[in-house]
């Protein structure tokens, strides 16, 4: 009964859905046969960081197209867990490393999957490029704007394939919008909303900023657990006495490693907006923050962060608990608005959208990209752009003032203290690896 009921609703709601389903049912799957994988075509992957995300069902996988061959972690418990789980799940023994450079230089690894806290991402990605590996990197791409520039440079210089791991710009229903991004992109491209546009990413439009990722002040130094190589965990970050709240699940609450909910969710939420607005090749020129003064170590909360592009387009983030009251649009233009749930003030909006050609096709199969050396849909360049939006926000928060950014040179205008945050100090020897 469940099936027929759902298909009835689909039929009445959207005739289009039927089309792709019915002929398939009648004639079977179409298209070229790509299911056979020759052993020489099989790719291999190593994961650095076997904590939460590295061990998730999404990523701790191994199949005939891409075999997981090695894992690395600075926490012995994490590493042991990965080996045990790997043996149980795939029936093979994974190669284990405690120094990530050994994994990066392992000749059996084709793809390096970076699943560490973000203060490591830039260095590992650059080193993997040098070692001739392709890269699958978790979000946020890098902790600083400077590290992002270095990753872009290295990927190009060494001809690597890079994928940043968020996906809403090319698949899946996009949070509060209840639709994938493509129809929104077509709508915006059609010009019916007018220009410039303001996009509001807020609880009021279906996005939560997860303010439980805040840090604690006045941490009392604690003994370092035996299983953890804390010095390696810190890596390029300044040395600070150990406290369990700094590492593993809670690291996002400290500026040295990430930037709280903004760092965690920012690229998920903002990257599709950058795509919709067609801003993959530029940056905002101004960022304004409304927030309490931030602690130098522990990430705090904020009320709003507002980005402005040179053409007047804006992206406004509203902090958890500080959302606009009432019904506010997700996208607002001079001629029309789009609300949560893809509710739009333009009549017959779906007809307008359906009458437009699809956006240019993009490469959304990472393994295929690795084989044919094509850029992935979300790669180093557009990934660096959306991550920079996140990082512009954290720079403005840490300084508590409005910052002006030069999108050509990628530097702040007339603010030395802000420019110091573009390339932050790194502990040796890690700094020179990414230069």
């Amino acid at each position, binding site marked *: 009964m*469940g099936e027929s009921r759902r298909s009835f609703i689909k039929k009445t709601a959207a005739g289009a859905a039927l*089309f792709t389903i019915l002929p398939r049912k009648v004639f079977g799957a179409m298209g070229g046969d790509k299911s056979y994988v020759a052993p020489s075509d099989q790719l291999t992957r190593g994961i650095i960081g076997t904590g939460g995300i590295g061990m998730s069902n999404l990523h701790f996988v191994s199949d005939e197209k891409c075999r997981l061959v090695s894992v690395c972690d600075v926490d012995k418990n994490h590493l042991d867990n990965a080996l045990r789980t790997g043996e149980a799940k795939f029936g093979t023994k994974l190669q284990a490393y405690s120094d990530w450079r050994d994994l990066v230089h392992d000749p059996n690894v084709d793809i390096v999957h970076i699943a560490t806290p973000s203060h490591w991402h830039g260095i590992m990605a650059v080193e993997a*490029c040098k070692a001739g590996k392709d890269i699958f990197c978790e979000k946020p791409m890098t902790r600083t704007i400077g590290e992002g520039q270095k990753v872009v440079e290295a990927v190009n210089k060494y*001809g690597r394939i890079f994928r940043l791991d968020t996906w809403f710009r090319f698949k899946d229903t996009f949070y509060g919008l209840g639709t994938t991004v493509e129809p929104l992109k077509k709508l915006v491209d059609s010009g019916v909303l007018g220009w410039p546009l303001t996009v509001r990413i807020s609880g009021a439009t279906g996005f939560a900023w997860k303010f439980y990722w805040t840090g604690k002040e006045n941490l009392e130094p604690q003994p370092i657990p035996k299983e953890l190589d804390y010095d390696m965990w810190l890596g390029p970050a300044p040395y600070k006495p150990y406290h369990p709240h700094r590492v593993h699940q809670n690291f996002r609450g400290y500026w040295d490693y990430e930037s709280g909910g903004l760092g965690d969710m920012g690229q998920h939420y903002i990257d599709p907006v950058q795509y919709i607005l067609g801003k993959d090749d530029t940056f905002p020129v101004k960022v304004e923050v409304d927030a*309490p*003064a931030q602690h130098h170590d522990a990430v705090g909360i904020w009320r709003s962060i507002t980005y402005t592009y040179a053409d007047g387009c804006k992206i406004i983030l509203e902090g958890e608990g500080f959302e606009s009251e009432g019904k506010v649009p997700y996208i607002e233009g001079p001629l029309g608005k789009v609300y949560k749930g893809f509710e739009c003030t333009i009549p017959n909006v779906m007809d307008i959208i359906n009458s437009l050609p*699809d956006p240019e096709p993009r490469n959304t199969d990472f393994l295929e990209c690795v084989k044919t*050396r094509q850029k992935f849909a979300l790669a180093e360049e557009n990934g660096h752009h959306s991550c920079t939006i996140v990082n512009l926000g954290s720079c403005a928060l840490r300084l508590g003032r409005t910052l002006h950014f030069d999108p050509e040179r990628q530097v702040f205008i007339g603010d030395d203290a802000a420019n110091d945050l573009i390339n932050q100090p790194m502990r040796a020897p890690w700094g020179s690896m990414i230069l």
Partner: protein
Amino acid sequence: MKKIFSAIICLVLALSLGAQDARQRSIDTIVADVLAAMPAQNAADQATQMADLAASAPSSIVKVASMLKPAAAGVKNSAFEYALTGVASYASANPSVAPAVREGLAQAIKATDDVTNKEFLMIQLRRIATADQIALFKDLAKNPSLAAAAVGALVDIPGADSAILDLVNAAKVDKSLLADAVSRKGLTAAEPALQAWAAASTGRELRAICSSLAKIGSASSLDLLKANSTADFADLAVKLADGTNSKVVAKAAKALLGSDVSAYKSAGALAQMKNNPLKAVKTLSAALKSDDVKFRNSVLNDAASIAGKDAVAALAQTMYPKLAQGAKADVLNWIGSNKIHNAAPLVISAIADGGDLASTAIAAAGKLGGGDCLQAIVSQLSGPASAAAQTALKSFKGDIQDAVGAAFDKELSAVTAGSKDYSSMMNIVNLISSRKLSGLAPRMYALAQSSDSKLALFGQTALASVVGAADADKLSGLLDAAQGDAEALYRNALQSSLKTLPAQEQFEKVSGMIASAKNPSRFFSALANSGADSAVDLLRKSFDETGDKAAFNALCGIRNYKAADQLLAIAKGNPDLADRAVESFTSLVSGFEKNADVKCGKYAQALSLAQAADIKSMILKQVAALPTMKSFLLAGKYLDDAAVKMTAADAVRKIASATKEELDYSTLKASLEKAAKAYTERGQADDEYAVKEIEKILGEAEPSPISELTAEEKKQGFEMLFDGTNLDKWQGDKEGYIPMNGTIYVSANYGSTGNL
């Protein structure tokens, strides 16, 4: 002279403002005031406080810094940290106060013993340091625990090059740290020292030295790097290649090209091309013959940036016929993603060649666009690359209707002649449908009525995408007479044709069709689609009179709030239809009901009638979107229902986080703890987030502990008037005052003036 003059001004300012501010406060008072305001709640407050602190620098800063204690249990440094970070930030934007702030921080660094606090102060000073602080940081670099912060500061300060070189020559500071600083500052003068260190270094230190030499080294470092680190050797070779056709670089490039690691080979090619740009084309032509796909693509892109896209395009076109399949694909992909329009003839001929590369060429042509490419792609709609052609045309910019129409006609005659399978036809019709090529509607009608059942199915399916309001009557006849699958497809098409008309007009048209139809029930869903009030009445009537499931189904699909009550009544009277009815009921309530409490009450009714777990979950998800106390209590009831407890857990968590209403703490705690337990037991990737969120909500909601009187106070005869739960000991008008969660609330309805 100017410098001295401004220094005097600053000193005067510091003395006059610092010792006694406008409000005649002493340094201690100013510091106390600033610290009490930390952390400032907004930028304006912060600026005011920091202006006060900076105006009384350096002594105010020394004073605050002296309050920093070594981190330990119970030590709270954060107010001091906020103030010191804040004042450095303030000074970085207000140059007039910066000298006094720098002086304060410099004095504080000297006076502080604890290493962590000292480093914290150094980081603050570093943000605003000038050449005057070079000596201080150079001295601090001698302390191994502070060397990283000190050398880092020297890197940031303009004019500190010679200080860094002094440290390099003295070689008493950690070598990897210095190597790092040398490469950041590009200090080529340090090369001999680094080369000497490399001979005696290993491990991390050697890696740092090699990385640094790759950045600042000359040709004399090439051999050293070749022996120790191929990646850095490659980096340096590429860096040294500057178009002067150097023999050393040519030799290094050749060595790299001989590597079996594709990244090093690519770097070798890049060095070779940069070293002698005239040879770029030659390097590329060699690379295109390689069987290493990574190498080929790297060199294609690098050659384009060195020799220009036109030169690469010209070479690629000349070489194309002789290239292996893999290299041909690379060239086609490169032409497409770089939009090399003048290479369109090559792409078009590759399409005509067919074979394995046709799909790649079609994708490239799609990116290039233009009339020639359109024709070439359309010609493949009926070939083995039909699927690729369809994909490319879905996003092809411009008018494709006539070209696709011609392709359709050609394919139709081939299929009806029996010479082909149906897959290309399916792709063409799919394309017509997804691009809404309404000019091809007559062809779709003809196809829909074809005697070949498969072709008919294609046409019937596509109709919905190409019809308009004028087609309604024609489609009505087709629907009434349809057989099998065609019924659903014509219904779809009819609904699509009606959808632009106003509701009442739709209703009138469809009820007219019903009156004259042989199969009236086929029109019920079109009736429901109108959303008109009269459609609700007519459908309910049909269901009551005939028990026709089609009428019930249509009623479930109607977007009119009037249908909600009808559906609820049907759910109560027909248990076998209850789930279906409450599902639609809930969807209507969610979309139309404005009053949160009424909404919650309706969801409660729906939940009590729902039977299947997925329906209950669906309703609970709607409950979760209501941030009220009532919805919290409703969702909480389902935490013990094993089939829907995760949805209930999501609901209570979301409501507790979003609500602005006051929830009773013990109820809140009981439900959220149950939810947290459910998340922990399930243990999926995001569940940890959920548990953290719950802990945070509970932490914030926890009532502050009721204070107790000390023995001393009791002896003096004091008595507690409020125990957190009642107002028994209070006097006056207690109405409008509500004791809850250990706090006394004043009802907003009662007014704001207290009279307890």
